[in-house]
């Protein structure tokens, strides 16, 4: 391994490749900030550039830099404007945006940068050690397990349900799942619930829904009640993370790097589930008073999804490099680029072309480091976005939500849907319904149904639930994740009542 490392270091540290990493990170960060352009589309755009370079290691290094940059860029719009452009950064806005609202935008971005760096680097370390061994584990997961894993992901709703709000959270999750069934499913090739409207044939767009659920109601709230604006032109204060805060997020980062990485290894699971699960798990194991902070600007709640999604992105390289199976849309595009460069990823890659394999791993470390070094000094300037006068900021937020929805589908109907959903979402927010579960349900709904249907077909019924121990185990975990918090709440309520009776 040491020999491989040295080969990789030698390739990655050449002047040309260093430029590639830096350039890739910068391009990724800036384009990633625009909502609507996620890592997948940015990488797709960069492919012609990468292929024309001819050198596979340099091309892969460039694309990996773009990938990391795009994920970090996506977090900034989640944190500053509550406009997550990528599914993987939705969870970052749960606590990142409240922090920005309290005038701690700089600190939130710093925590995001550090958590991303740690997640990515620890992920790369794990990739280096475990890549060959993990490829076999990834193959053990069948659709039944994926189904169970999605259910675990959905049980994250328990993390959003306040006291006595479980029914509302459940309702919103179901609504999200219902919305995910609109359109043509991959498995049946039948349009469902389209009401004969052609534009609904392909279903609702993820970005349209994300913008309508988070960014649009937020902008409307700012219009309705100008006093509540985030930052409000104040100095960006509290950029530094105190020692005490660092101490409290360090274990979160450690746990989530591991968990995120292993979820990322499973093909199809990826950064989105890793970030939701990371958020849910950290909330469930936090102490009582820390738990009440979640959703209101908890640094743990921000660090957890940020670490997990970066670690998962690194993890998704395991099946790509060792088996040649792309685990996500982004790695599928990377696979295409590799094949165009005459490199076939798979079990032979490490043996036949070690310099490519190791150069990619080394460039992950360098990419993460470059990202941290580039971004930390830029944070005060990025956070200045919030200091833009309200009369200009709000039209621009609205414009970017519209643009995000339009670019993705190139369809003007999508814009009308965006406004309609935005109004519904605002009404739901007035009535104190949590909106995050709806989006989670929508994102996971398609995958959930596909995997459920596939396992039903394979086992000709629901026997897979008890015939596959891993499925059963995951489902039990999901049930525990839902039941434990409500049980704890119930006990706390009973105890509180007992005290009141004694009075």
């Amino acid at each position: 391994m040491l020999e491989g490392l040295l080969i990789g270091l030698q390739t990655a540290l050449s002047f040309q490749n260093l430029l590639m990493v830096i350039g890739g990170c910068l391009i990724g960060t800036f384009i990633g900030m625009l909502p609507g352009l996620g890592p997948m589309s940015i990488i797709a755009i960069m492919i012609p550039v990468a292929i024309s370079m001819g050198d596979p290691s340099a091309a892969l290094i460039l694309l990996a830099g773009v990938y990391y940059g795009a994920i970090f860029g996506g977090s900034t719009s989640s944190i500053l404007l509550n406009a997550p452009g990528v599914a993987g950064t939705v969870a970052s806005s749960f606590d990142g945006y409240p922090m920005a609202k309290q005038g701690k935008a700089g600190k939130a971005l710093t925590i995001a940068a550090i958590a991303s760096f740690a997640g990515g680097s620890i992920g790369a370390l794990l990739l280096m050690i475990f890549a060959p061994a993990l490829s076999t584990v990834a193959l053990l997961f069948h659709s039944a397990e994926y189904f169970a894993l999605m259910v675990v992901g959905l049980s994250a709703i328990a993390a959003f349900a306040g006291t006595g709000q479980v029914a509302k959270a459940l309702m919103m999750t179901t609504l999200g799942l219902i919305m995910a069934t609109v359109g043509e499913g991959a498995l049946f090739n039948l349009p469902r619930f389209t009401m004969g409207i052609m534009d609904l044939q392909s279903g609702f767009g993820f970005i349209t829904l994300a913008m309508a659920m988070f960014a649009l109601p937020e902008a409307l709230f700012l219009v309705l009640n100008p006093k509540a604006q985030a930052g409000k032109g104040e100095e960006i204060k509290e950029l530094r993370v105190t020692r005490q805060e660092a101490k409290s997020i360090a274990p979160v980062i450690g746990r989530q790097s591991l968990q995120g990485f292993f979820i990322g290894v499973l093909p199809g699971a990826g950064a989105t589930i890793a970030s939701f699960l990371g958020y849910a798990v950290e909330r469930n194991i936090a102490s009582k008073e820390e738990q009440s902070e979640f959703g209101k600007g908890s640094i743990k709640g921000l660090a957890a999804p940020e670490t997990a999604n970066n670690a998962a992105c690194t993890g998704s390289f395991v099946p790509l490099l060792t088996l040649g199976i792309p685990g996500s849309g982004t790695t599928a595009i990377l696979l295409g680029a590799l094949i165009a460069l005459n490199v076939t990823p798979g079990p032979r890659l490490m043996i036949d072309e070690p310099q490519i394999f190791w150069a990619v791993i080394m460039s992950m470390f360098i990419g993460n480091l470059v990202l941290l070094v580039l971004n930390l000094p830029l944070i005060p300037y990025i956070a200045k976005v919030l200091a833009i006068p309200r009369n200009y900021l709000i039209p621009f937020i609205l414009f970017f939500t519209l643009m995000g929805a339009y670019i993705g589908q190139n369809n003007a109907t999508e814009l009308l849907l965006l406004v309609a959903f935005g109004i519904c979402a605002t009404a739901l927010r007035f009535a104190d319904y949590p909106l995050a579960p709806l989006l989670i349900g929508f994102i996971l709904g398609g995958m959930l149904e596909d995997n459920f249907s596939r396992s039903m077909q394979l086992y000709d019924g629901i026997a897979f639930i008890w015939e596959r121990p891993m499925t059963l185990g995951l489902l039990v975990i999901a049930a525990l994740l839902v039941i434990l918090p409500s049980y704890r709440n119930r006990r706390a309520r009973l105890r509180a009542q007992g005290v009141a009776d004694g009075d």
Partner: protein
Amino acid sequence: MALDRWIALILAGVCLTYGYTAWFTMDGELAPFMQRNPIWPSTFPKVLSVIGLAASLVILLGLEKAKVQKAEIDYRRLTDYHLGQALLLLGLMVAYALCLRPLGFLFSTSAFLILGSFILGERKWLVMLPVSLLATGIVWYLVQQVLGIYLRPLPGFIGG
């Protein structure tokens, strides 16, 4: 009845319509060979409609004791806030959606940005105009020229 229960009532209606489609009308169009499948396109929606209906009834009937929280904005006094501005902006977004194709990206976007800040009370034309026009130009250049995603720049009748 509080707003959240009204919404629950509407959602119950949505679930009923959805459930009706799933339970009674969808399976009729199913091809004969697909009927041997253990899972039908309507299986998952059937389950969802039942869960959704149950959850909406729980909220509607107030079976779960909820702690009343102070909301950010009290919807009962909606007229105390800048409601007119919000509605105008929503109208502007709809207008933008309808004009984007026929009138072209450049005109629609600059008009949207200028009118948007005008509605919010900005009257400094000397700042407003250059900022909006410049932003429109930069976004158009970035999306169309750099990223290569087609946006019709000019109105159709000019040949854009």
